[in-house]
């Protein structure tokens, strides 16, 4: 008889549910993490795709996005969304200036591959320490975008997580439309495919490199705002997120927007499962093992065209 001890009718087999419930929960948190990770690493992919360089200051841009929001919202008591947007606009402009004054002068030199690493690494250190000096070393938190949670049957999902997914998906979709449908977006894809061809048709490379840097910093800033309630804001977070973003980008294939998206969701889900069954401690080793495994089979990553 399908009756429990308390005498209530149970509509499903409790044995199966015990296994299924955490499994589904892990998938849901995997999707949420994937959405954040996709936002976090997309800027890195754009810069690599268009400008063939790694931006080691990307993690710093991410937590500065959080800092700005914290500063304008918690300290200056501006509206939450206004604070976030203000921070993102500042990051966009700042990154354009960085490109103009530090990267643009060395871009045409033969060893840009290594000099760009030095410049962005230096920038990451400066931005990290500037955060300490200006805002103090204490860890900061930002309030959630939305309080409360949604309950569907036995599953619960916080409004914060729903908002995170909605914002990430919305922005990534917007980015995709921008890259596919606008002239500037098409020009960015063209630069990534043939830089000389792009010059021949009269694309001003310097201007679009700077724009890409700005766009990438803005995406980093947004992900900083989304990350803040989950991971706190402190300078070391910049390195941690950079590390994660680099693995996501390499795993998906350097410069591939599609690859980054898919790899963010794969690694997000992996993280959710590993932390549920093995513990948080195992997340990064497992990521690393999976990445190395993929690189053995596909040296250019899942969808990479460049090694």
């Amino acid at each position, binding site marked *: 008889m399908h009756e429990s001890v308390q005498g209530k009718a149970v509509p499903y087999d409790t044995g199966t549910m015990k296994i299924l419930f955490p499994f589904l929960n892990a998938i849901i948190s995997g999707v949420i993490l994937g959405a954040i990770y996709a936002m976090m690493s997309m800027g890195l992919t754009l810069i690599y795709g268009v400008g063939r360089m790694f931006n080691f200051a990307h993690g710093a841009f991410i937590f500065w996005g959080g800092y700005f929001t914290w500063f304008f919202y918690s300290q200056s008591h501006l509206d939450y969304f206004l604070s976030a947007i203000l921070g993102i606009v500042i990051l966009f402009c700042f990154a354009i200036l960085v490109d103009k004054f530090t990267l643009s002068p060395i871009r045409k030199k033969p060893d840009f591959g290594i000099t760009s690493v030095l410049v962005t690494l230096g920038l990451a250190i400066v931005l990290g320490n500037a955060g300490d000096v200006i805002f103090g070393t204490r860890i900061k938190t930002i309030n959630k975008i939305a309080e409360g949670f949604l309950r569907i049957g036995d599953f619960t999902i916080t409004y914060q997580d729903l908002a995170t997914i909605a914002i990430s998906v919305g922005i990534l979709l917007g980015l995709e439309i921008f890259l596919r449908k606008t002239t500037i977006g*098409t020009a960015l894809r063209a630069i990534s*495919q*043939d830089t*000389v061809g792009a010059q*021949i*048709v*009269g694309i001003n*490379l310097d201007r679009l490199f700077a724009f890409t840097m700005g766009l990438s910093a803005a995406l980093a800033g947004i992900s900083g705002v989304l990350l803040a309630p989950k991971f706190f804001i402190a300078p070391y977070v910049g390195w941690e997120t950079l590390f994660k973003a680099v693995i996501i980008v390499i795993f998906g294939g350097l410069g591939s927007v599609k690859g980054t998206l898919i790899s963010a969701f794969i690694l997000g889900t992996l993280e959710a499962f590993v932390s549920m069954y093995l513990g948080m401690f195992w997340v990064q080793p497992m990521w690393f093992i999976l990445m190395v495994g993929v690189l053995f089979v596909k040296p250019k990553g899942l969808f990479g065209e460049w090694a």
Partner: protein
Amino acid sequence: MLEVHQVNAFYGEFHALKDISFLVEEGEVVVFLGANGHGKSTLLKTICGLIPSSTGHIKFHGTTISNLPMHKIVEIGVVYIPEEKHLFPDLTVKENLLLGAYNKRARKERENSYQFVYGLFPRLEERQHQIASTLSGGERQMLAIGRGLMSHARLMAIDEPSVGLAPIVKTEVFHKIIEINQQQGLTIILVEQEVESSLAISRKGFVMKDGRIVLEDESKNLTIDLIQKQYLV
């Protein structure tokens, strides 16, 4: 319209162009002949801004264009069609053409330019939604020329358009070049190995050797024997 005066250019240490001077009149087709590695392609790249010139000057309609950034030169009205094409392999034919009209002048005329290019090369219209890497050699050359036409240039510098094409396609390409020149009044500088055909469609011919212009005359006075015996060893 184009005035090249005492231009020198270097590839690293290699002195690729030596005191090059010549004039091109509005609406004419001129051709540069000579063996490989004697500076013809370098000359086109220098005019279009891909390689800097170290001395001398290049003027286009009275404006000095030597050592301007390439996007400025395109905006002024000089477009380069390289031998290697440099198409965007993963963009569609139409997207490639769209970017051909990237400069401000050309953007306004974009819809008309599509019509003109598709009229000239109906094959490109048939394949407008295919990505460029799926095209045949002849179609790639058409796309490269079409993309150049989209820029609304007044001077087109074409580097070896016939190289690697089947004879019948070569003839078609030369016919299209005449058509562009006559219909649009576009001035054309051609670099070629096909001596006979290119002399037939041009008004002036130049022969280059070791980075210098060693012979220049009206095309009708240049014979294939003369050029081949002396310069194309």
